[in-house]
């Protein structure tokens, strides 16, 4: 069977400044990111013939975001569309871009996201269900789903809040080496423990940031990428899977589709967990990261709590994660910056936080009420 292993390249990455920028909009931040990614790639605007977008929570045009962005950028694409899977969108759109360029439906696809969530004060609230809202019982906000997962994981396997804290500490340590990160002051486990409860068993420092910013990645085929200016970074493996049923599945809380997405990505790339040199794991809440280790085969079911102890997931450890700081400390770009950092690690362009000799990077995304998951394996070309 023919596969897309190593046939696609990410040739341009760019991000706007990250933080809180009153006066900016989802659109203006997306445009800034696009310009930076275009410059990074060395392509001309008129060469971009594919445009895939994620409407930020503050983009009023929602599902018609692709039209607004195309008009603003002056691009009339051969291939376009918008998708919203929350934190599962970035990886899904990157995969869609890979399919499009390999099918010949576009040559250079820009995947673009912009959001002014910090300024716009938008809420992330798919947690409350569709019809008879779970809000009747006070169940609301994204944190609640991860708290449900953490509470059950703790009860079944003895996982502790301090172990969750190891993830927050690692993200912050790495952000301290990233001049573009929003939160750069290192934190301790004690500070994690002392931070206020949000939805117990999750503390404030178990939660990601809410940020303004934009991110763009440009995708083409490996053959076209060879003529461009950046070191070659290939998409070796891609996988996606979804659990749409929350209450109907007794393992919904365990996010079982993460394993399916990872297994597909490993299979396409022809690698396994032992081959991963560095990982950018979607961290809306610390609990999410624990489950990635279990589903990715880095440790056994129930053992992720002890797995993350002792500096294993920090730079210099066996499996450094979220080397730019992740959603927790770099900026909450819903996983888009995880892909950017993965590309930069594979270029060897991360300076102080570069994982030396890294050739394979796993990047994961997840979104909505534990519903969406994807995995991308990037490789140094």
């Amino acid at each position: 069977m023919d596969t897309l292993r190593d046939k696609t390249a990410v040739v341009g990455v760019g991000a706007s400044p990250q933080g809180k920028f009153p006066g900016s909009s989802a659109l203006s931040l997306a445009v800034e990111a696009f310009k930076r990614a275009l410059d990074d790639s060395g392509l001309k605007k008129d060469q971009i013939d594919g445009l895939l977008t994620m409407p930020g929570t503050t983009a009023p045009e929602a599902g018609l975001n692709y039209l607004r962005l195309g008009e603003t950028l002056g691009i009339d694409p051969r291939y376009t569309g918008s998708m919203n899977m929350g934190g599962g969108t970035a990886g899904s759109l990157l995969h869609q871009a890979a399919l499009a360029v390999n099918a010949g439906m576009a040559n250079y696809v820009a995947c673009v996201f912009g959001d002014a969530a910090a300024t716009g004060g938008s809420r992330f609230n798919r947690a409350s269900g569709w019809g008879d809202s779970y809000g009747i019982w006070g169940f609301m906000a994204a944190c609640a789903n991860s708290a449900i997962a953490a509470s059950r994981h703790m009860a079944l396997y003895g996982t502790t809040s301090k172990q969750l804290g190891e993830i927050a500490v690692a993200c912050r340590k790495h952000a301290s080496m990233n001049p573009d990160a929003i939160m750069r002051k290192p934190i301790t486990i004690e500070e994690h423990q002392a931070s206020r409860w949000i939805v117990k068993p999750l503390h404030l420092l178990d939660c990601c940031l809410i940020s303004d910013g934009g991110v763009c990645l440009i995708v083409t085929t490996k053959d076209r990428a060879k003529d461009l200016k950046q070191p070659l970074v290939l998409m070796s493996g891609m996988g996606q899977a979804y659990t749409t049923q929350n209450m109907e599945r007794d393992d919904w809380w365990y996010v079982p589709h993460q394993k399916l997405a990872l297994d597909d990505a490993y299979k396409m790339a022809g690698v396994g967990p032992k081959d991963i040199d560095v990982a950018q794991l979607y961290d809306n809440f610390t609990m999410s990261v624990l489950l990635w280790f279990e589903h990715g085969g880095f440790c056994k079911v129930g053992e992720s709590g002890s797995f993350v102890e002792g500096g294993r997931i920090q730079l210099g450890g066996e499996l450094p994660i979220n080397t730019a700081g992740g959603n927790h400390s770099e900026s909450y770009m819903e996983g888009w910056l995880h892909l950017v950092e993965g590309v930069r690690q594979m270029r060897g362009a991360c300076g102080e936080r570069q994982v030396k000799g890294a050739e394979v990077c796993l990047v994961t995304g997840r979104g909505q009420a534990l519903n969406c998951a994807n995995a991308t394996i990037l490789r140094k070309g």
Partner: protein
Amino acid sequence: MDEYKKPLPTISDENRGFWDGAKRGKICMQKCGDCGHIRYPISHCCPKCLSLKFAWTDLSGRGSVYSYVVFHQLYNQAFKEDVPYNVAMVQLEEGPRMFSNVVGVDNDAVKVGDLVEAVFDAVTPEVTIPRFKLPSKA
């Protein structure tokens, strides 16, 4: 009595069986008329076999705490007097799971795995909300 300001269901033909059941003091869910699957959340069709046939069926009201969280963050002003309050994911004896609250005890008194039984909280003349309690001590 103060007006109840927290979220209420919009009762419709689709969900009336559940809320009428609660007024009668029962957890009442839809049982598929073809495959027998008891489903939740409420839906017009069975997620197992897509049958449109179902009967509203009274359940025992017994279950156990499947997962359990305590909201300290105030996301909706209507819960201002309630924080910190708990939400339990309850595994019902007959198979379905639902979110609800465990009432009558401190938040710290409830653990995953605890047995619970339904109690019914008439919050308005029209709406009774099913909640749960730990079993009465003998």
